[in-house]
């Protein structure tokens, strides 16, 4: 089971902020499952075939861009968080 956290701005589409997803072996597979479950999410998250730079995806606190991007493998118990890209401090 993968634990998934969404930001508030997803709620319009996902209706909830925390879900559990079964059987996703990678970020790519997880995204496919989420896109199927939540119509409309894909159009917002994918721009010109790439993930939007305005949402960062973390696996257990690590940015997937520092791992293997959408190929990043997932295992049971992993936590995936979608977080708006914000910084400046």
């Amino acid at each position, binding site marked *: 089971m993968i634990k998934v956290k969404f930001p508030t701005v997803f709620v319009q589409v996902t209706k909830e902020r925390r879900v559990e997803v079964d059987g996703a072996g990678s970020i790519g597979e997880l995204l496919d499952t989420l896109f199927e479950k939540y119509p409309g999410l894909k159009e*917002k998250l994918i721009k010109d075939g790439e993930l*939007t730079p305005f949402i960062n995806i973390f696996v257990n606190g690590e940015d997937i861009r*520092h791992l293997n991007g959408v190929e990043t493998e997932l295992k049971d118990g992993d936590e995936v968080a979608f977080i*708006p890209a*914000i*910084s400046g*401090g």
Partner: protein
Amino acid sequence: MKVEALKCRICGKEFPPEALYTCDNCFGPLEVKYNWDWIHDHASKEKIVKGPNSLWRYRDFLPVSGEPVDLGAGFTRFIRATNLGEKLGLKNLFLIDDSVNPTYSFKDRVVSVAVTKAKEFGMQAVGCASTGNLAGSLSAHAAKANLPAYIFMPRGVEKGKIIQALVHGAKVIEVDGTYDDANRVATEVAEEHPDWGFVNINLRPYYAEGSKTLAYEAAERLGWNLPDQVVVPMASGALLCAIYRGFRDLERVGFVEERDVVFNGTQPRGLPISRAVKYGGGIEPVKKMDTLVHSLAIGNPADGIFAKDIIEKTGGFAEDPADEDTIEAVKLLAKTEGIFTELAGGVTVAGLKRLVDDGRIDRSDVVVVYLTGNGLKTGEAVLDHLDDTIKIKPRLEEFEEVVA
């Protein structure tokens, strides 16, 4: 009303002016959309000149309606740097010295605006992720506003900056990781506590507006003229974007004549925005940041693409001095102009030097350089690069022998 809406910087969708920061259509960041008729009717140079001598002299351009939470930030020293100019070969070099703000960095400008908004929205607490300067500024303004403050900092920030945050009573949470880790945790906390105002997260559209006053001040003090070039330190890139917007605002209301100001950015070696501008490619996040300049060490700069775009479309450039050059530049500025800036200022002066040496800035150009923080905050980093003290016994003869 002065503020019409919040507007997505990517798709243009509009939202009510509340504590929102992300577009629900494309997840892009939001910015403030003003009613320019209102500003036209209310703002005037005469009103500005009457004061106060703080950023609130530009209140008609700032997205607040209530009484400001004000420690006196802004309208800092504007210096004609003849000595440094002579060293570098520039005839018209000007410095804005934000090391003399109430908490000794430019962050007082953005925080004063953001905490004012937190009060307006009736928020119960304020917070931020910080590399240090924002921490001190937020904790001081929160104290003034009677609000609790939660500050998330990465490990390894200079002691002085932690002391400054703690002394005002903020809760300082030291996150075992980089700034980007601290920022991620802070964003998650902000999502869980919508009635807390995280100044650089859910209040970010308003917060960023405070930096526009660095553009207004440069123009006002140049006799309502825009400079030829600016040199701006970059962490997230938000400051450079805000200064760009500030100049456009003044053109829009007719306070200055239009001019194509060239925007140059500086970052410590290896960071994403300078790297993308200098060597091509997109803004690629950096995980490990090997620099002493903690205040600019953001590996995942949220405004990076916008800052890069401004630099490129205005014909500017980005420089990326190594830490040794940065420390030398801190000393050069201190020895020529009597200003002790923090390392970020060293990055800026070192970047300026390189831009001049490479012929990107002309000898006669009017150049405004932004110094964003105070040297005492990062004193430990330069200590090893200074002459040692001269030690003598308390006797005149010894002074004469050893020193004279």
